[in-house]
């Protein structure tokens, strides 16, 4: 590997690590957790190592300092304070410059000094004047085995009530009911208790609280309460780097104690497995062992299924090749069609099989391009923290739907618009702290990011609990800025949509955040170019939600192939409402407006596509040709075409903007016969046509 290549790999890695560090730091500020400090420590450690390998010794040395600072935090020598977090964040900024912007790094030596002095000071003084961060209360875990005497009912004790008391103390992690004492049906005495229970419970309370529940039954019945907090792991499969022994898993799940495990280990027969021994000693059931084995397999899988980084160009390459295969296949199908029925039968059959595999192949590659939105969302945490501080508002970012997967290209394209919308919510959505207190709201504003799949699309929502949009106010601003005419009537939704108009800004003074030449109109056009849409839901003093709807992937659409003259064009199926052959009397010419078609008492303007694309049509008259009714953003158009060819899944190839500036063409696709066909974008076509009309 050349030095350049090493540096590139390092840059990619560093970018990811730094993002993670920022997220982790902000979350550490929200609540302290020693695990978070550990994670941070590991990230810095990795960064130190990799920057050393990449030859950036300065970065390596500097990160070493931060690493040792965190090490002292880890060993609880020093406390986590807001000023410590600020310093580490500042040092991350510095590291960023040192890595990505080497030439700039020299000017930052004073900042570096400052950070190093802070670290140096902290090494001597344990106390810090600023308040320590709230500690996250750790849960205690208990295993409770309840084995009532069979005549427990005679004492007026209801086991159910006791169990109900128990489960209110905390959360039940594991619940087991032993039925081994239950006799055959004809021997059952309804006045006897045959069941035993085992609970693993996570609670904030100490053991005393649980003891109290069993206060009255403790002496006569077999009740065993064990504190398993030390050994218990909530998620055994997380953070593993070595195989787990079955006994350890059982201990961590809280099913047995360390002592019991040792007892079983010392009592093992020759050639006997631990699990078997545990079952034999009646410490666990067969089922527990099975479950633990499952966990063991999962852990092993986690160790094995490491990821590899693949350049996107390589994936695209595979995708392109696959496209070639599909094209080749369809030409074989065409040859098969020309053969005799019985000769072609076997060939066609195997082609169908092949077809299925290639389709699956395609889906697999598409799945490879899908990544969860979590990391993208998380990186906004720092952004919200910093910007809200800057303007003196208290705002917290909450994230939902982290695991929702989306095409990587879509994620990249949506990051900037999202950032801008969040900025908009910080700036205009959420009120100042004083205002919020006056309104009786929580002084801390909340912005929520959410992502989910629905209707074969992905939805991303940015919600704030701020003041909401005021339709009347928006309207009057738009009028004063000359965006709409004074007497124009607008519905509420139309008024809300005004904020997406160019030149519209509700901020009275151009703040530091907005007014950088990008407005919500750019956001809207970015989303449009991803073939998405935005919906605004707002309620006064309750907040505003921007709901962005996006296609799952940019690479594939369902298209309708249409023929105009000699050429084949593709119209996205989503835009098509219907296709008709109009009657002669339904086509009318309106002076200065062009032609219209009447479809069920609605006049829709008719576009002769052959004229637009400069083709020689098969039919000159709309009543001989076909008309496809399409729609975009509520506007309808009637496209006159020669013929409908059929529906097909289309792999979109983007067209360089040097090829054409025509907005009606959103890309191209390669058809089964190897020819290139252009994809018509209805939204673009509408705007091209309206600009033609002037």
């Amino acid at each position, binding site marked *: 590997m050349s030095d*350049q290549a090493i540096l590139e790999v390092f840059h990619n890695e560093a970018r990811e690590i730094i993002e993670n560090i920022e997220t982790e730091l902000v979350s550490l500020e929200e609540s302290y957790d020693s695990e978070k400090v550990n994670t941070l420590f590991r990230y810095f450690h990795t960064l130190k190592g990799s920057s050393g390998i990449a030859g950036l010794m300065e970065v390596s040395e500097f990160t070493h300092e931060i690493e040792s600072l965190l090490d002292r935090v880890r060993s609880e020598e020093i406390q986590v304070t807001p000023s410590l977090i600020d310093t580490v964040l500042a040092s991350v900024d510095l590291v960023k410059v040192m890595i990505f912007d080497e030439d700039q790094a020299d000017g930052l030596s004073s900042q570096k000094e400052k950070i190093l002095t802070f670290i140096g000071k902290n090494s001597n003084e344990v106390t810090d004047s600023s308040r320590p961060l709230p500690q996250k209360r750790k849960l205690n875990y208990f295993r409770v085995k309840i084995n009532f005497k069979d005549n427990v009912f005679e004492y007026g004790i209801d086991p159910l009530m006791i169990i109900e008391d128990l489960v209110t103390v905390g959360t039940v992690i594991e619940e087991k009911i032993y039925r081994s004492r239950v006799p055959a049906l004809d021997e059952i005495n309804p006045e006897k208790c045959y069941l035993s229970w085992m609970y693993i419970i996570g609670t904030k309370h100490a053991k005393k609280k649980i003891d109290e529940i069993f206060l009255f039954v403790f002496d006569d019945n077999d009740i065993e309460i064990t504190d398993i907090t030390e050994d218990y792991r909530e998620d055994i499969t997380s953070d593993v780097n070595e195989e787990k022994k079955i006994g350890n898993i059982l201990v961590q799940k809280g099913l047995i104690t360390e002592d019991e495990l040792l007892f079983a280990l010392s009592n093992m027969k020759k050639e006997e497995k631990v699990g078997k021994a545990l079952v034999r000693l009646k410490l666990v059931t067969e089922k527990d062992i099975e479950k633990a084995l499952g966990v063991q397999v999962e852990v092993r899988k986690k160790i094995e299924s490491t990821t590899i980084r693949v350049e996107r160009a390589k994936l695209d390459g595979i995708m392109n090749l696959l496209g070639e295969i599909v094209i080749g296949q369809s030409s074989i199908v065409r040859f098969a069609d020309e053969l005799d029925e019985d000769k072609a039968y076997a060939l066609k059959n195997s082609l169908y099989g092949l077809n299925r595999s290639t389709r699956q192949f395609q889906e697999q590659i598409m799945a490879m391009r899908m990544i969860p939105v979590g990391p993208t969302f998380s990186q906004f945490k720092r952004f919200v923290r910093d910007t809200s501080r800057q303007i003196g508002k208290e705002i917290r970012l909450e994230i939902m739907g982290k695991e929702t997967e989306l095409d990587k290209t879509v994620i990249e394209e949506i990051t900037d618009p999202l950032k801008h919308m969040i900025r908009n919510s910080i700036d205009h959505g959420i009120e100042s702290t004083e205002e919020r207190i006056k309104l009786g709201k929580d002084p801390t504003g909340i912005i929520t990011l959410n992502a989910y799949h629905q209707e074969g699309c992905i939805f991303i929502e940015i919600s704030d609990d701020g003041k909401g949009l005021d339709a009347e106010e928006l309207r009057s601003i738009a009028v004063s800025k000359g965006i709409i005419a004074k007497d124009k009537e607008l519905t509420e939704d139309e008024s809300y949509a005004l904020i997406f108009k160019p030149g519209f800004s509700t901020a009275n003074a151009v703040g530091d955040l907005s007014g950088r030449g990008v407005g919500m109109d750019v956001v809207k056009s970015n989303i449009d170019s991803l073939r998405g849409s935005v919906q605004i839901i707002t309620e006064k003093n309750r907040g505003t939600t921007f709901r962005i709807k996006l296609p799952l992937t940019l690479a594939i659409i369902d298209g309708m192939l249409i023929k105009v003259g000699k050429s084949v064009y593709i119209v996205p199926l989503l835009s098509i409402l219907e296709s008709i052959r109009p009657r002669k009397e339904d086509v009318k010419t309106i002076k200065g407006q062009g032609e219209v078609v009447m479809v069920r008492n609605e006049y829709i303007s008719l576009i002769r596509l052959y004229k637009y694309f400069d083709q020689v049509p098969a039919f000159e008259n709309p009543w001989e040709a076909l008309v496809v009714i399409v729609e975009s953003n509520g506007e309808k158009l009637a496209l006159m075409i020669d013929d409908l060819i059929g529906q097909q899944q289309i792999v979109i*190839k983007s067209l360089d*903007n040097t*090829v054409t500036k*025509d907005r009606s*063409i959103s890309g191209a696709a*390669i058809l089964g016969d*190897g020819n290139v066909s252009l994809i018509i974008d209805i939204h673009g076509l509408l705007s091209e046509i309206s600009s033609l009309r002037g």
Partner: protein
Amino acid sequence: MEKIDRKKTVAEQIDDEANQYVTFLISGESYGVEVLCVKEILGMTDVTPVPNTLSFMKGVINLRGEVVPVVDMRIKFGMSEKEYDAFTVIIIVEVKRRLIGMIVDAVSDVADIPIDSIQNTPHFTTRIETDFIKGIGQLAEQLIIILDVDKILTSDEFQKIDQEDVSE
């Protein structure tokens, strides 16, 4: 560790060596482009026309699954159009990591032209734009106009399209 050298661009590497050029004919005149820019040469194929574009942008073709724009060099150079025939070829060149096809009358040769026999572009008095001409090479009494592919495809017209796109 010393600072890492940025990789030399392809063009810089060529300048270090004796240069090879793919030569082709447009309207009887010989032109050349650096061989390392040329990805491949195809016979004339079906070109899908694109609406609303510059006159010399003939459209797009399918190059093994990739959609590649093609430019008619005759129109680009302001010459009269000519029917495409069996000799017409599309030379696919790579410019700034994207592919583009040049439709030319015929392809002739791959020639070595020593650097010292290439002279800088003289100031033509004709209409021919000179900014995409790198120089004039001489090869056995024959003049070869050496084109700078980078410039052909980032010339004013293209920039105009780009800018219009941005301003919209």
